[in-house]
């Protein structure tokens, strides 16, 4: 069993296009939520989204390459490159074969699907471009990360809706810990702010008309986001031998399924995933100082998650700082868990807890410390990052400060 450390991060988010910019924005409480520009807003009922503004693919790819890459794959490749660059990891001398690329995404190349099928159905095109399938397939982002970064070990996509990124990182963690690979580039990517997807979300009737207010009394739902984050995971011995800077240690991964309702979250499933991560580490509950919550801003999620935190931590729950960064970046679905773990790692590193923004007052069903509206300076020994998906798919990662 190898200890597993994080040596690189990559981020594209609605509030910053690098890990540093993302982190600076989160601790300043900056919002990346605004009226949609990627779709024609007139025909969308819920116009508030979290778009990755200012992303220019021509800064990262040649023109011919862009043609092969849906926006989601562009995001994935860019964050993978950032993470490898920060880790100063060069995949030489057989390391490429012993490095994994595991990328979660909820819906893959959604822009390609939307645009292609519009051509077919609305414009009566007689044929689609041969790049349609290679761009749209849910594993495209993982394949492109492998091809652009030269990663030749285990490579695949993980799909578990809003938990995809967390499941992907957890799988990579277990693969490095077992010695199956030495390094992994893992995370999540999502770029599904399309007309078709937004109308689908609208039909779920869980979208906030104003903004995302996790755990707040008057919360009205979630806001769809997009983006990507990647982490370089590395066996501790390997990281030490090459003198890599260690950002944090991944210690536990817990998974569970509710086997219940499609959309109503179940505190029992959430509790089992959190307790699973603690047991996998193992970490005593009283060492957890911070939880980056799933915190979508829906009535059901935030009260169920609060109940699960009580069950998992007992009397300790009220002493744990809990925040939802979705209040600033929205819900990036399959990328959410990776973006949130990246935030959690920087919180550990700097001893700063990012706030839950847009919080106006307590809900009796949400009675914990949600770090409302202002970041807090506080040392963190260990933390959890929660992801609880539609379909009852739960995944939780435990990280702690690397202290040698």
């Amino acid at each position, binding site marked *: 069993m190898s200890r597993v450390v994080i040596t690189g991060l990559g981020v594209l988010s609605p509030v910053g296009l690098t890990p540093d910019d993302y982190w600076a924005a989160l601790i300043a409480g900056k919002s990346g939520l605004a009226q949609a520009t990627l779709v024609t807003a007139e025909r969308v009922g819920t116009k508030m989204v979290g778009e990755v503004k200012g992303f220019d693919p021509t800064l990262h790819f040649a023109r*011919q390459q862009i043609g092969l890459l849906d926006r989601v794959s562009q995001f994935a490749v860019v964050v993978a490159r950032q993470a490898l660059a920060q880790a100063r990891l060069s995949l030489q001398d057989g390391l490429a074969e012993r490095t994994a690329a595991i990328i979660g995404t909820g819906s893959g190349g959604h822009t390609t699907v939307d645009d292609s099928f519009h051509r077919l159905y609305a414009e009566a095109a007689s044929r689609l471009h*041969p790049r349609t399938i290679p761009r749209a397939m849910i594993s495209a982002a993982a394949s492109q990360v492998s091809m652009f970064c030269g990663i030749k070990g285990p490579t695949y996509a993980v799909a578990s809706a809003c938990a995809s990124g967390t499941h992907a990182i957890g799988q990579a963690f277990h693969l490095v810990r077992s010695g199956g690979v030495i390094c992994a580039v893992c995370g999540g990517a999502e770029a599904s702010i399309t007309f078709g997807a937004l109308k689908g979300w609208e039909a779920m009737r869980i979208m906030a008309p104003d903004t995302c207010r996790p755990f707040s009394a008057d919360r009205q739902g979630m806001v769809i986001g997009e983006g990507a984050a990647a982490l370089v995971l590395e066996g501790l011995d390997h990281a030490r031998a090459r003198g890599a800077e260690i950002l944090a240690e991944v210690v536990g991964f817990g998974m569970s399924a509710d086997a219940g309702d499609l959309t109503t979250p179940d505190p029992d499933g959430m509790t089992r995933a959190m307790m699973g991560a603690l047991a996998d580490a193992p970490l005593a509950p009283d060492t957890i100082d911070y939880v980056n919550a799933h915190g979508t801003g829906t009535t059901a999620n935030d009260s169920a998650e609060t109940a699960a935190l009580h069950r998992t931590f007992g009397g300790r729950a009220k002493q744990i700082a809990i925040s939802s960064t979705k209040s600033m970046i929205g819900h990036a679905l399959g990328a959410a868990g990776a973006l949130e773990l990246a935030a959690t790692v920087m919180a550990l590193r700097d001893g700063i807890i990012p706030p839950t923004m847009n919080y106006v007052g307590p809900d009796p069903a949400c009675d914990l410390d949600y770090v409302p509206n202002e970041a807090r300076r506080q040392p963190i020994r260990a933390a959890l990052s929660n992801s609880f998906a539609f379909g009852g798919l739960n995944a939780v990662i435990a990280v702690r400060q690397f202290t040698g």
Partner: protein
Amino acid sequence: MADVANYIVEMITSRLGGDHVPLQLSEALVDVGLDSFQIVELTFAIEEKFNIDIPFNANTDLESKTVADLIGEVERLIAAKARPA
């Protein structure tokens, strides 16, 4: 039909990025330097341009056909389309 030949030659050379000029019409598509997916994309571009369907799938050995073969086949398909049924 010279425009057909010119279009196909241009589509091939643009995909090769100037690495392979001049193009020999007697060369097989694979020897010209096109990979299998580029041949699929080339087929799509020709179909869109001339509004024809080129009968080609993964079991068809299009790669070993020459540039001249391809031009001839496309010209035949265009002529067949123009002919009243």
